[in-house]
C-alpha cells in the first residue's frame, strides 16, 4: 500500500485498531485517513504509547510529595529533590516482548532506552538496576533467553559505562515463553539544569541527532501491545538493534548541550520513533511542526511511513532557539554524530509531514497523545476462582519435614535463592567509582553522591508469587519490601517508579489482578509517603498456544530510591565478628504461605500471600531507623525469599561467618526457619551492648534473641548444620552449574 492511499476499516483492524477507533480517527480528521496517517494513529493509540487501558487506574496513584520537582507524566521521568542543589531523575521500563524473541538485542535496547529517558532530561545516569523474570531454569529455552538477556544488558551497559549496582532475578514456569526484562536507571543533575520535552516558538528549527534511521523496530510499539504467539517470530523486524557506543557519544553531547542556552526542548526517540517525539513535544507546547522526512539521515532506502515509525535507537529530537543552530551543530560535530535540521515549529497545532515536497500526513498533534485525543477505556474485571481456593490453604495439612538439615541444604540451591553471581559478574558494577556496596553489601545498593555528604539507596523488588496469590497484599508487600531494603541500608524512602507487567487487559481476570495491584500500591505509597514518579505498563505478557493461554504472574516491579543523608549512617547486611549477638526484630508466625519452601521445595502452588500487617511494618521500619541512627546495631538484613535461614546464610557468607541459634518451639520449626511472613529484620550487635539494646527495644517492638555469630559453624537448636564454607560453595555454584550442564 502506498503512503497516501486512502484506507478503510479493514486496514485499521489489520493495524491493530478497533472499529470504533477508526470512526473516531475519521471524526478527528474530518475525512478518511491515508495509510501513513492510519499507521500514525495505530502506533500512537497502541497500549504502549497511549496507556488507554491503564491510565484511569494509574491516575489513582499518589504522585505529589514535598520532594517532587517533576511529577509523573510531566516529563520523561520523575525528578526528586535530594538537597545540595541536586535532583535525581529515575525510572524503570520493560522490554519484555523484544527480549522474548531476540533476547540479546531486546535486553540491550531496553538498557539504552531507559538511560536515554534519564539523560534527555539533562541528568547524567549514575547507576542502573534490573529486574528479570524467566521460566523454569532447566529448560533449554530459558537458558537461551537468560544467557542472551544477560549478555545484552552487559554488553550495552558495560560499554555505555554506567554501573549496574543491583537487581533481582526470579524463575517461575509462568514466564516460560515470556520473560520479563525491566531496566532501571537513575541520574543526577543540578536542579536548574532540567531539559524539558517541549516544543515551542514559531519558526524554531527541529533537529534529529544521533544514529541514522533504519528499518529496525518499525511498529515496535504496536508489536508490544499484543499477545505473544507462535507467529510472533515473524515480528522479529520489530526488534531494534542497539549501539552503546553511539549512546555514549549521545550522552556526552547532550551533557554539553544542556550547559548552553541553545535548547528549547529535547526528547529521546523510543517507542514509535519520530512520530511519538514530534507529537508529544508539540502537544506539550500546544504547537505544531512541519517535518521533512526526506531530510532524516537514513541507513537504507525507506518509505516515508517507515521513517516516521522506525524505532532505530540512539536518536533524539531537539528544538533549538532560532539563530543558535551552530552551537548545537558544533557540539555534535565534536562527538562525530549526525545532526540534521528536519523541520520547524509552527503555530498550527498540527503535525505536517512532507516527503519530497508532498504532504503525506497532516494530523492534529494533540489527537495522538495520552491526555489529549488518545482513547481511554474502562475495562471490566472479575475475581478469578483461584483467589479463594488459594486462601483455603492450611499449614496443618503439610507434614513437618523429617530431615530439616536436608531442607536447609536444598533451599540454598533453589534457583530463586542461590547467588546470582553468574549474572551480575557479567555487569560492570564498579565503573563510576560510586558503588559503595561492592565491598560492604547492604539490602539496597548504596551509591555515593560525590561532592556531598549524601548517598542514594536504590532497590528493585517484587515477589510476583505473592502478587499472584493476592494482588492487593502482594503489591503492597513489594512496595514495603523495597522500603524495608532502603531502611535497612540506612536510607529514608523517597519515591518509587513502577513497571507493571501483566497479561492481556481484555481478560477480566487479568485486569482484576491489575486493578488490585494498583490498589495495594496506592495504599502502600500513601502509608510510606513515597509518591509514584512514573514508570511503564506492559500488558500482553502471556503466551497464546493453540488450545490455551498462559498468563505470566502479575508482576508490578517496584523501583525505589531513598536518601542516606549522612554517609556515616550507612548500614550493611554482613555479620562483622564472631561472638556478636543475633536478634530478630518483628513478629514470628506459623506461616509458610507462598514461600520458596512451599512453592519450590514442596511444590505446592496454592496458598495465599504471606502474613502482612501494614501497621506492624511501619513500626518495624521506624524502629530500624532509630537503631541505625543510634548506632545500636552492626548489621541489618530483612527476611525475604527463603526465610530466616537464608537470611542468616546471606549475612554469614560475606565474611565467612556461621551462626549458632535457637528457634522458638511455639512455632513449627520449618515455618520459623523458612517461612516468609513479612515485617521481620535480623540484626547483629556487639555482645557488650546487649542490655542497652534490649532496653532500647523493650515495650516498643517485638524482638527475639536468636543466638550468636560463630567463626564458621552453623548450629540450630544444638544440631550441627555444617560449615558456612560448604554452604557458600553450594550457594555460589548452583546457577552456574545448571547453565553449564
Amino acid at each position, binding site marked *: 500500500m502506498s503512503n497516501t492511499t486512502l484506507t478503510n476499516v479493514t486496514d485499521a483492524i489489520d493495524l491493530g485498531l478497533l472499529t470504533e477507533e477508526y470512526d473516531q480517527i475519521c471524526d478527528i480528521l474530518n475525512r478518511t485517513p491515508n495509510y501513513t496517517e492510519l499507521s500514525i494513529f495505530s502506533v500512537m493509540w497502541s497500549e504502549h504509547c497511549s496507556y488507554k487501558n491503564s491510565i484511569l487506574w494509574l491516575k489513582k496513584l499518589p504522585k505529589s510529595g514535598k520532594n517532587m520537582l517533576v511529577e509523573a507524566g510531566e516529563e520523561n521521568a520523575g525528578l526528586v529533590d535530594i538537597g545540595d542543589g541536586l535532583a535525581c531523575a529515575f525510572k524503570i521500563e520493560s522490554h519484555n516482548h523484544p527480549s522474548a524473541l531476540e533476547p540479546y538485542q531486546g535486553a540491550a535496547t531496553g538498557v539504552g532506552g531507559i538511560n536515554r529517558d534519564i539523560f534527555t532530561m539533562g541528568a547524567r545516569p549514575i547507576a542502573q538496576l534490573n529486574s528479570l523474570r524467566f521460566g523454569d531454569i532447566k529448560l533449554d529455552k530459558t537458558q537461551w533467553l537468560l544467557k542472551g538477556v544477560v549478555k545484552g544488558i552487559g554488553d550495552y551497559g558495560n560499554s555505555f559505562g554506567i554501573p549496574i549496582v543491583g537487581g533481582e532475578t526470579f524463575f517461575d514456569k509462568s514466564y516460560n515463553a515470556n520473560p520479563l526484562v525491566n531496566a532501571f536507571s537513575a541520574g543526577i543533575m543540578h536542579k536548574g539544569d532540567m531539559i524539558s520535552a517541549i516544543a515551542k516558538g514559531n519558526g524554531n528549527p527541529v533537529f534529529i541527532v544521533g544514529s541514522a534511521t533504519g528499518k529496525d523496530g518499525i511498529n515496535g510499539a504496536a508489536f508490544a501491545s499484543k499477545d505473544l504467539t507462535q507467529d510472533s517470530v515473524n515480528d522479529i523486524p520489530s526488534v531494534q538493534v542497539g549501539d*552503546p557506543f553511539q549512546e*555514549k*557519544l549521545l550522552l556526552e553531547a547532550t551533557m554539553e548541550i544542556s550547559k548552553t542556552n541553545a535548547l528549547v526542548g529535547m526528547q529521546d526517540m523510543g517507542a514509535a520513533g519520530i512520530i511519538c517525539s514530534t507529537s508529544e513535544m508539540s502537544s506539550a507546547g500546544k504547537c505544531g511542526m512541519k517535518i521533512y522526512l526526506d531530510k532524516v539521515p537514513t541507513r537504507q532506502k525507506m518509505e516515508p511511513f517507515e521513517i516516521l515509525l522506525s524505532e532505530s535507537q540512539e536518536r533524539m529530537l531537539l528544538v533549538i532557539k532560532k539563530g543558535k543552530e551552530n552551537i548545537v551543530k558544533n557540539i555534535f560535530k565534536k562527538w562525530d554524530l549526525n545532526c540534521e535540521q528536519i523541520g520547524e515549529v509552527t503555530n498550527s497545532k498540527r503535525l505536517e509531514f512532507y516527503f519530497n515536497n508532498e504532504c503525506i500526513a497532516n494530523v492534529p498533534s494533540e489527537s495522538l497523545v495520552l491526555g489529549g485525543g488518545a482513547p481511554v477505556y474502562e475495562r471490566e474485571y472479575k475475581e478469578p476462582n483461584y483467589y479463594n481456593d488459594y486462601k483455603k490453604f492450611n499449614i496443618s495439612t503439610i507434614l513437618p519435614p523429617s530431615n530439616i538439615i536436608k531442607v536447609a541444604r536444598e533451599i540454598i540451591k533453589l534457583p530463586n535463592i542461590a547467588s546470582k553471581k553468574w549474572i551480575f*559478574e557479567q555487569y560492570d558494577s*564498579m565503573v563510576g567509582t560510586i558503588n559503595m556496596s561492592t*565491598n560492604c553489601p547492604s539490602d539496597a545498593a548504596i551509591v555515593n553522591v560525590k561532592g556531598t555528604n549524601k548517598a542514594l539507596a536504590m532497590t528493585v523488588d517484587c515477589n510476583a508469587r505473592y502478587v499472584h496469590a493476592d494482588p492487593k497484599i502482594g503489591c503492597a508487600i513489594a512496595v514495603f519490601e523495597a522500603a524495608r531494603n532502603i531502611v535497612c541500608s540506612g536510607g529514608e524512602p523517597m519515591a518509587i517508579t513502577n513497571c507493571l507487567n501483566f497479561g492481556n487487559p481484555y481478560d477480566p481476570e487479568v485486569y482484576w489482578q491489575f486493578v488490585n495491584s494498583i490498589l495495594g500500591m496506592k495504599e502502600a505509597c500513601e502509608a510510606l509517603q513515597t509518591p509514584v514518579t512514573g514508570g511503564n505498563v506492559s500488558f500482553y505478557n502471556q503466551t497464546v498456544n493453540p488450545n490455551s493461554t498462559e498468563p505470566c504472574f502479575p508482576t508490578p516491579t517496584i523501583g525505589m530510591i531513598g536518601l542516606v543523608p549522612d554517609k556515616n549512617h550507612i548500614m550493611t547486611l554482613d555479620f562483622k565478628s564472631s561472638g556478636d549477638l543475633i536478634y530478630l526484630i518483628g513478629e514470628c508466625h506459623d506461616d509458610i504461605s507462598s514461600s520458596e519452601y512451599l512453592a519450590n521445595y514442596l511444590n505446592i502452588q496454592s496458598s495465599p500471600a504471606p502474613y502482612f500487617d501494614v501497621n506492624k511494618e511501619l513500626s518495624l521500619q521506624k524502629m530500624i531507623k532509630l537503631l541505625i541512627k543510634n548506632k545500636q546495631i552492626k548489621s541489618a538484613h530483612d527476611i525475604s525469599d527463603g526465610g530466616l535461614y537464608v537470611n542468616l546464610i546471606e549475612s554469614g557468607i560475606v565474611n565467612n561467618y556461621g551462626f549458632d541459634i535457637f528457634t522458638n518451639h511455639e512455632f513449627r520449626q520449618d515455618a520459623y526457619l523458612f517461612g516468609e511472613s513479612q515485617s521481620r529484620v535480623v540484626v547483629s550487635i556487639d555482645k557488650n551492648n546487649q542490655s542497652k539494646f534490649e532496653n532500647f527495644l523493650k515495650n516498643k517492638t517485638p524482638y527475639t534473641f536468636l543466638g550468636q555469630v560463630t567463626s564458621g559453624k552453623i548450629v540450630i537448636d544444638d544440631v550441627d548444620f555444617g560449615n558456612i564454607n560448604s554452604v557458600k560453595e553450594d550457594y555460589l555454584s548452583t546457577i552456574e552449574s545448571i547453565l553449564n550442564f
Partner: protein
Amino acid sequence: MKFGVVVFPGSNCDEDTVYALRNVLKQDVVKLWHKDTDLQNVDFIILPGGFSYGDYLRSGAIARFSPIMDKVIDFANNGGYVLGICNGFQILCEANLLPGTLKRNQNHNFICKNIFIKPQHNLTIFTENTGPKNVYKIPIAHAEGCYFADEKTLQKIIDNKQIVFKYCDEKGEISNQVNPNGSLKNIAGICNKNRNVFGMMPHPERACDQLLNNTDGKTILEGAINILEKMGK
C-alpha cells in the same frame, strides 16, 4: 606532578581516573582529547579504560590511530611514563608500545569482580616500594583481558623481567584457579623493556576512594608518584 588522561570516544573510566588522581591523590590532571596533538607538557600519560570507538573491532585497534596516539608514542619512545589501564592496555599493545595482545576471556564472558594481584619484583616505579608480602585487591572489568604472546616474546618478557603483576589469591598464591581470564602465566600487568610504559587489566583507579572501602589501588599509584616526585618530576 602533571598527569594527562587521554579521552577517546567511548572511554568511560576517564572521569574515574581524573577523580582518583585529582581528588584522592591531589595531583594536577588534564584531559587530552583524542583529536588533539598537544600533550600540554604532562609528566605522565594514562590511557583509561572503556570501549574506545565501541571496540566493535579488536579492542583498541581503532583508538591506536587517533591523532593523539602519534604524540603518545613519541612521548613513550623518549622515555615518558605511560600507563594503560584495561582498554588503555589493549591500545598500548595495538600501538606496539607493549608486547603481546589481549584475547577474549577464556570463559567468553565479561567479568567484573575484585581479584588479587602480586608484584613480581621491585624494578618498576609501581613496585619499587612494595615488600615481598604485598598482595593487592583490585577490581577487574573486561571481556578481553586474556594476555597472550607467542613463545619467543613471552620468553623475552620473562627474561627482561617485564611481568609486573600476576593474578593470585588473597594470600599471594599464584595458581590456575585464581586466573580470572586465562592469561598466560597469570599475567595481570606488564611493562616495556625500558620500564617506562605499563599496561594492566585491573583498575587501580577503582580502589582509591576510602568511601568504597578498598584503597589498594591508591597504594599502587601513590608508590609511583612518590618515586617520581623524588626524581624531581
